[in-house]
């Protein structure tokens, strides 16, 4: 019990009727007593964030160490099972990066890839989440859709490339379709999983507060599944990039996957690494976006 006002009462001579108005006065939250100087504030901030600072410092060091190892391996052209003879050095990659950011072509590749991800992923979320919610709630829909989904799910998105090219009139559409497929199944499966874990006691609680089917869906099932939905979105985003890059390499004309493959064909080794790093950064950025959205949508979980 964290309300001292309640516990302080001598229980034995407390008449039950008088108890409530008095006993239930909640303690008003008292603000920290003295205004503290900048120094102590900084110290306190440091103490609170010590763990995070430490993690950041170690993270930065390890990235630098990675770059250093990469640099050494390429400058000395190490051949030890793996051949670093043709691998571009970090500085060479940096040079081609500074050139590329002024190159409208490179930027176009990036923009196009992002657009494909955006469309494919959004479609997958818009279809996958509601379908998962409905499947979780209505048995018949589940029984009809689930077998088909289970058969199609294990097929990797890359295996869809020839079929996608046949299905869709333009290359652009088939690439978006493959991106869609890649993210669709993780989103669907995780939403379903979330629905299956909804605590039945919460549903009962809503029912005896007067909630009908539709309100229960909106106020209980949906928010209760949100954490899993976001897991699905995060995984789905990862798979979307995997699928997109594969599709671009095979059938694309533009896009960062195509750029990377083209660099290999044109023997521009620094651009291969640049393409790879760009893909990594874009993938990371999009996962961070989803995580941020998750915090916005689920404020009750963000303090954990």
């Amino acid at each position, binding site marked *: *019990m*964290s*309300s001292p*006002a*309640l*516990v302080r009462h001598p*229980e*034995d*001579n*407390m*008449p*039950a*009727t*008088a*108890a*409530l108005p008095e*006993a*239930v*006065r*909640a*303690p*008003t*939250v008292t603000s920290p007593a003295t205004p503290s100087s900048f120094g102590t504030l900084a110290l306190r901030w440091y103490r609170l964030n010590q763990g995070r600072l430490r993690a950041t410092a170690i993270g930065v060091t390890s990235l630098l160490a990675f770059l250093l190892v990469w640099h050494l391996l390429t400058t000395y052209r190490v051949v030890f099972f793996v051949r670093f003879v043709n691998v571009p050095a970090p500085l060479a990659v940096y040079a081609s990066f500074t050139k590329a950011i002024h190159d409208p072509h490179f930027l176009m590749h990036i923009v196009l890839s992002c657009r494909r991800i955006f469309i494919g992923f959004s479609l997958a979320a818009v279809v996958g989440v509601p379908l998962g919610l409905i499947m979780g709630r209505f048995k018949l829909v589940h029984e009809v859709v689930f077998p088909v989904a289970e058969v199609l799910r294990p097929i990797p998105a890359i295996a869809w490339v020839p079929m996608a090219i046949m299905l869709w009139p333009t290359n652009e559409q088939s690439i978006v379709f493959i991106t869609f497929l890649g993210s669709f199944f993780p989103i669907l499966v995780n939403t379903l999983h979330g629905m299956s874990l909804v*605590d039945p*006691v*919460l549903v*009962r*609680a*809503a*029912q*005896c*507060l*007067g*909630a*009908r089917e539709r*309100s229960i869906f909106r*106020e*209980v099932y949906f*928010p*209760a599944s*949100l954490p899993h939905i976001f897991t699905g979105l995060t995984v789905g985003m990862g798979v979307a990039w995997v699928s997109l890059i594969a599709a671009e390499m095979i059938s694309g004309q533009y896009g960062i996957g195509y750029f990377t493959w083209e660099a290999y064909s044109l023997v521009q080794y620094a651009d291969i690494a640049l393409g790879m790093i760009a893909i990594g950064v874009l993938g990371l950025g999009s996962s961070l976006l989803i995580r941020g959205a998750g915090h916005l949508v*689920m*404020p*009750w979980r963000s*303090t954990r």
Partner: protein
Amino acid sequence: MSETLASEPKGHIEVTNFSLSYDSIEGPVQAVTDTQIHVNPGEFVSIVGPSGCGKSTLLNAVAGFLKPTTGIVTVDGERVNGPSAERGMVFQQYSLFPWKTVRENVEFGLKMRGMPRSQRERAARTLLGLAGLEAFEKHYPEKLSGGMKQRVGIVRALATGPKVLLLDEPFGALDAQTRVIMQQILTNMWQRLKISVLFVTHDIDEAIFLSDRVYCMTARPGSIKAEIPIPLERPRQQSMMMSSEFLALRRGLMSLIREESLKAMGGEINDMGMQGLNIELHGHSLADVI
């Protein structure tokens, strides 16, 4: 809130010829059989009984979550056939919505009723004030202690102005200190709102301290073994728990329950060849009871 503070007591529960069996692979499991109970308007009634005797089953049928196999349940003359906001319920597992703040939890029933936002916010604040929780209105349930969660649960169930409050071992997970305070708060709310309460508990002291009447159930299949009026005067105080009157009631109820618990475990005890054990049981030996 004036409507929930109405002056006429309400909520007459009537359970007649009630039985309920669950379907299972081995055939139907008779959980409760041949049971009649009633709760008068404004009355506080507890149900005690050995574990697994069907207390929750009975309560869930009154709430409308379970359909009786035979018999009927009525509240104020109307037959119960499904959960409704008329019958508020408090569960042992706190059951607050984790994605709603304390105030939003309390508002939920009013929202379902279509009350406009500003109005229900005001109502929720008033109610939270009564329970000493106004400082926590913006907190999410996860951050509250068990006692506070259960207070919110009670306030939430009362917010819609139900005729009946059903509680299934609501304080079972709380420590002794908190329990006592929660009992006081519940008593208070009940007296103010003048609704009837059906309260399931394991704790005999709690049942006596809170109730006007206590039903004691038999071991499974549960039925009513005894109905014990509690003539202790109100307001009740902690000191009463030492009074001879209280202790006599306690002794009586205790032996009733022990009898049933032993009956429930009788099979096991026999199987383990423990008949030789002579447990004192108000005059009977264990062998007489089994």
